[in-house]
């Protein structure tokens, strides 16, 4: 079993829809949770960072962590064609940034 599981997609939704991206994990020691956005042929860009459980909102993006279920989500409201990218979840136990575990990414396409 992988430490972090992420549906690879592709996920295609119409412009304006609410998008839900998810990851599950097995290591209960994970406390730090990140979402990265990666455009085609570019490096990943840090989008959201949360610690422990709860929600964090930034503009149209909301990150949600449920440690009891070992499940994290990224919601995108009012999705735009410019949101079309691959989204990577990442998490760590805080011991070292070299121990960050990444999901394999979900490819998202927003149809105009």
């Amino acid at each position, binding site marked *: 079993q992988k430490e972090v599981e992420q549906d690879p997609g592709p996920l295609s939704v119409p412009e304006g829809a609410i998008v839900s991206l998810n990851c599950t994990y097995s290591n209960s020691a994970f406390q730090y949770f990140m979402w990265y956005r990666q455009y085609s042929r570019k490096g990943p860009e840090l989008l959201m960072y949360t610690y422990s459980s709860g929600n964090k909102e930034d503009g149209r993006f909301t990150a949600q962590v449920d440690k009891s279920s070992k499940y994290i989500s990224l919601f995108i409201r009012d999705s735009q064609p410019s949101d079309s990218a691959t989204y990577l979840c990442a998490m760590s136990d805080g011991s070292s*940034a070299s121990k960050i575990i990444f999901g394999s990414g979900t490819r998202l396409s927003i149809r105009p």
Partner: protein
Amino acid sequence: SQTIHQWPATLVQPVGSPLSLECTVEGTSNPNLYWYRQAAGRGLQLLFYSVGIGQISSEVPQNLSASRPQDRQFILSSKKLLLSDSGFYLCAWSLGSGNTIYFGEGSWLTVV
């Protein structure tokens, strides 16, 4: 603010030729530095990380090597490339025990 530069962006190299990818970070001191490889559908694989000048940790045995000749410079090398070395290589940095890492734009390597 901190920036990370990575070059070259794209290169095509014959099997058996040497490789040198370079990365520099600006706007910070004593960063942790990383080299990742990203294969399609397989997520990010940590290759090397460094916590200081001359200090290199290897995560995956292979024909690649890394060096850190200066505080904010990280180099990925190979003496003889293999076809299997083709992929997208990403340099990244973090601070101290920070739990987020920041990526460069990446280098696409095709070995022919």
